[in-house]
């Protein structure tokens, strides 16, 4: 019996089916826990899925390449999904055309602050070059941030995890920071959440106020574009 199971395992572990299936199961488990917990930002579904999958691969002694052979079918869709981000960006852009210049300046200042402060603090505390380059795009939505990390010499998978952690921090600390600064303008509150903590911050902003949600979504898209263009220039000056 054990031998039979082992044979099946040997067979399955070499086909893409297993990697693909466990990815979907892990993600849905994450979603289930997140929904059950009333959408609490600390129980982020992607983080849960990643922890479950890393644990599974380590316990079964499977290497990442083998897993990725199956999971690449999901991974491939990142490209078209990134292009598709133009659609919500355009929808929000249409709503705020009149104050677009103000929004752009605010997002650009946030984008620069995010990269410089992260690099500055980590550098002062002795982080390696690899870590610094992976940290720099962490406020940007994950598909774009990973592309930026790849283009600028960071580690895309480390960036993906740092992006999620940043999102969680923004969702947890955002309200507190904005209240401490006495910012009551929903537009500014949403914009700040979307700029600093991408989709996770946007989801949080949407829960609180519709206007904040719209501005967060716009800021997230703009910050993705802004960071992709600015960061290589900033990094060129620093490194």
């Amino acid at each position, binding site marked *: 019996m054990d031998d039979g199971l082992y044979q099946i395992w040997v067979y399955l572990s070499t086909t893409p089916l297993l990697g693909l299936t466990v990815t979907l199961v892990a993600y849905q488990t994450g979603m289930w826990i997140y929904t059950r917990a009333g959408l609490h930002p600390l129980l982020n579904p992607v983080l849960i899925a990643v922890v479950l999958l890393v644990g599974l691969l380590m316990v079964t002694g499977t290497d990442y390449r083998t897993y990725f052979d199956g999971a690449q079918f999901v991974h491939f869709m990142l490209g*078209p999904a990134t292009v598709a981000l133009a659609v919500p960006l355009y929808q929000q852009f249409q709503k705020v055309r009149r104050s677009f210049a103000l929004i752009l300046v605010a997002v650009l200042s946030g984008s620069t602050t995010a990269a410089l402060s992260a690099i500055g603090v980590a550098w002062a505390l002795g982080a390696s070059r690899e870590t610094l380059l992976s940290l720099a795009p962490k406020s940007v939505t994950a598909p774009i941030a*990973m592309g930026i990390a790849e283009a600028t010499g960071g580690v895309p998978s480390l960036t993906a995890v740092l992006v999620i952690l940043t999102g969680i921090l923004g969702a947890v600390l955002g309200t507190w920071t904005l209240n401490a600064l006495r910012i009551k303008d929903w537009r500014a509150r949403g914009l700040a959440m979307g700029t600093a903590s991408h989709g996770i911050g946007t989801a949080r902003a949407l829960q609180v106020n519709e206007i904040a949600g719209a501005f967060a979504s716009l800021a997230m898209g703009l910050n993705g574009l802004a960071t992709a263009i600015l960061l290589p220039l900033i990094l060129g000056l620093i490194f």
Partner: protein
Amino acid sequence: MTLGFITWLLVFQLLGEVISKGLDLPLPGPVVGMALLFLGLVVRGELPDGLKDTAGGLLKHLSLLFVPAGVGVMMHLHLLKDEWQAISAALVVSTVFTIAVSALVMVGLSRLFGNDAKGGDVSDG
């Protein structure tokens, strides 16, 4: 989701890759594709329903799509383990700073240009 609009997304991604590689830009191809599609929509002045649905379908599970890449962090766990203090400090400080700076700049500029919170600019689409 219609096949036609999936094809359009892939065409824009491909265009983005070609431009990015061709001009040796430090920009990811899909981001160039996104910028092109955005400009295309601005020029066209309207959003086709099919594209809206297709994009919505893809983006609904956007976070699933970066799980496989995220799992790759298992090959870099040493970085997280050795540098967790620097990384956590950087994440916390930078997130709070970024929220503060972007919100303050937005509020400041709105006051400066008399485009105040009251009135809800959001509704005048």
